[in-house]
């Protein structure tokens, strides 16, 4: 068994040779040269602003502020000064993105791993362990997806800073986190907000696994933990990867949750918080945003490109049943 075997392809019916269904006809037309040219055109058009930003990030400050990036072709002048300034600038105001970069990693990696672990376990339990009220739990998790994140911010913040008390009885004390400990708040918040969707996505995937497989394992005497580790986990790797990319990009690009739960201090604030302030109190230093943006793009780009082959497959497989 290798990573390329997924339940979706294993159970999918063989594709008919002639396009008979409407979907197949659409598929055929999308493969024509005209469609290819159109998609290349759209891709180029979509990339132009990013390309312009990239060119800008390499231009000297005065050029950025006075002329458009396209004038670079007539008058090429390039410098790495912007990157130098935002990454390693000495004064506290000049970026220091290098240290915020580390904060972003420290926030993002656990915020991806925690929901992934919890959701995989929950999805397995909801799909393959029979217990009373299982469907209600699943419906509850499903329904939680519609709660907007913004609604939960203030209650969650007061949960951390004031604890929980009911009718004067303290059920949970305040957490009283400070400085680096605030990472815990951010992990907690991101995990909470990610779980409903993660459970939903993985549940659809796990519940599709062939029943025979589970029964065979059980006949052989495998317990639930054993089945989960040896059979389920290897089979749902595409779905795990798909969710991991989703969650990684979401957390990496998140500003709102970080602003509220991490704050702007340089011990915990991620890149996005720093980027938002990079232009200065009066917005006069906006040339830094060009290189700052590229520094923050690098990691998501690497993650996406290295995991993208799982991405589409995992999403499609998860969506068949939902």
């Amino acid at each position, binding site marked *: *068994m*290798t*990573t390329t075997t997924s339940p979706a392809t294993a159970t999918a019916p063989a594709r008919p040779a002639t396009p008979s269904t409407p979907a197949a006809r659409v598929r055929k037309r999308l493969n024509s040269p005209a469609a290819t040219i159109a998609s290349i055109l759209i891709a180029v058009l979509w990339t132009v602003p990013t390309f312009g930003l990239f060119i800008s990030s390499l231009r000297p400050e*005065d050029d950025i502020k006075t002329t458009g990036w396209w004038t670079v072709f007539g008058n090429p002048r390039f410098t790495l000064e912007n990157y130098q300034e935002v990454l390693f600038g000495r*004064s*506290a*105001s000049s970026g220091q993105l290098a*240290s915020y970069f*580390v*904060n972003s*990693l*420290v926030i993002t*990696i*656990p915020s991806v*791993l925690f929901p992934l672990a919890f959701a995989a376990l929950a999805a397995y339990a909801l799909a393959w362990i029979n217990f009373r009220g299982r469907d209600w739990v699943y419906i509850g998790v499903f329904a939680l997806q519609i709660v907007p994140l913004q609604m939960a*911010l*203030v*209650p*969650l*913040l*007061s949960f*951390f*800073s*004031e604890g929980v008390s009911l009718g004067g009885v303290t059920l949970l004390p305040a957490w009283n986190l400070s400085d*680096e400990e605030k990472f815990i708040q951010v992990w907690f918040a991101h995990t909470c907000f990610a779980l409903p969707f993660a459970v939903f996505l993985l549940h659809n995937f796990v519940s599709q696994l062939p029943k025979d497989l589970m029964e065979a394992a059980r006949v052989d005497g495998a317990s639930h933990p054993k089945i989960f580790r040896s059979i389920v986990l*290897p089979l749902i*790797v595409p779905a795990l990867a798909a969710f991991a990319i989703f969650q990684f990009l979401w957390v990496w690009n998140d500003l709102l949750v970080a*602003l*509220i739960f991490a*704050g*702007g*201090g*340089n*011990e915990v604030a991620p890149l996005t*918080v720093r980027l*938002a*302030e*990079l*232009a*200065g*109190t*009066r*917005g*006069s*230093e906006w040339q830094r945003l060009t290189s700052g943006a590229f520094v923050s793009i690098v990691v998501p780009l690497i993650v996406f490109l290295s995991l993208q082959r799982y991405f589409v497959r995992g999403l499609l497989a998860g969506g068949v049943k939902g």
Partner: protein
Amino acid sequence: MAVQSRRPRQALAIAGVLALALGATACSGESESGLDPDSPECAPYSSYQGHDGESVSIYASIRDKEADLLRESWSQFEDCTGIEIDYEGSGEFEAQLQVRVDGGNPPDIAFIPQPGLLARFAEAGKLKPMPADLKTIADANYPADWLRYATVGGQAYGTPLGANVKSFVWYSPKAFAEKGYQVPTTWGELIALSDKIAAAGQKPWCVGLESGEATGWPATDWIEDLVLRTQTPEFYDQWTTHGVPFNDPRVVNAVDEAGRILKNPKYVNGGYGDVKSLTTTAFQEGGLPILQGQCWLHRQANFYANYLPEGTKVGPDGDIYAFYLPTLDPSKGKPVLGGGEFTVAFTDTPAVQAVRRYLASGEYANARAKLGNWISPNNKLDVNNVTQEVDKLSMQVLLDKSAVFRFDGSDLMPAAVGAGTFWKGMVDWVNGKDTKSTLDFIEGSWPK
């Protein structure tokens, strides 16, 4: 089982990255500085001592370079008192402060630039009133004109910190000297000068109103300045608090007076085009044509100096400088439009009170001013400690005996108007809508 054999290595790699990252952040902690609290350098701070090891968090909208200067300005205070000040600046300050207060996680101290927002927190009972000793310092150091903006229901909540002066017209002393133009001291002279420049075939004024979603705010400053100049300060107070309707005929009159410049195709927009170009010109770039000799006058606050290209000489004999926007009737005093932040507290531990006392003191004002790019209405602030020419001029204007200070009206009005329909209405007005229906529109949007 290719998957299984690969997983431990991936896990190891991830764990390794995580450990590295955590290690790196752990090392970035600040080192403690070792100034002896009893040394002579620390003598001025003796009254704030006794809270060693405590920390006070401050939250404000000031960030980047200015935030560095703030931190530097109180670093000696920290060394001598042992109080650690955790400063945090954010561009999302106004919205975030509300969330933090609602979530039970407010900062100890906040610098609030909008008296309207300050009043809202005060009325909700979130702010701590000033203790008596701080009140004494505040009354001794700040003009009553300023303190009343941080007084809600007779209770004083905050002291002013930094300030800016908006009633300025930027011009080029060099170009004025070449052409033999005089700096106008009355409104009549200002209009006469504008006519003279226009007759010479140039557009005298340049204006930029574009500022992203806040487009139009520079025009609201124009209107406020002219309401102050055509009417009494008391009328201005009534207007900003809705004691008189927004579209009062006297306001219509003031807006029309501003329109004589802003909507006059002979006067604007130097260096950029016609009246239509006002709303598409970034406010940061509004006054730059002065440096190229394509424009002569640009009404903007003292902080406009920050947008000038590096190396520009600002001063009475330099490339660019400012003069006080003249008033129509000098006998009524000199109205000054401006803004600033107020220091308010959400907690009142002794350490927080010590920091507040220090921030309100003359020692702090002078220490901060020496670092540059800052003025304060603190009357203990020595003008000689103010570094930039235009800031010195601002201090003169603020401290002038006949000056009547009024806070920027759009920060006093409800946000729906002051940071909403007032801006939008001004954009429509500049683009051709008539004064009466513009003001009717804004009046209609005032929250009931």
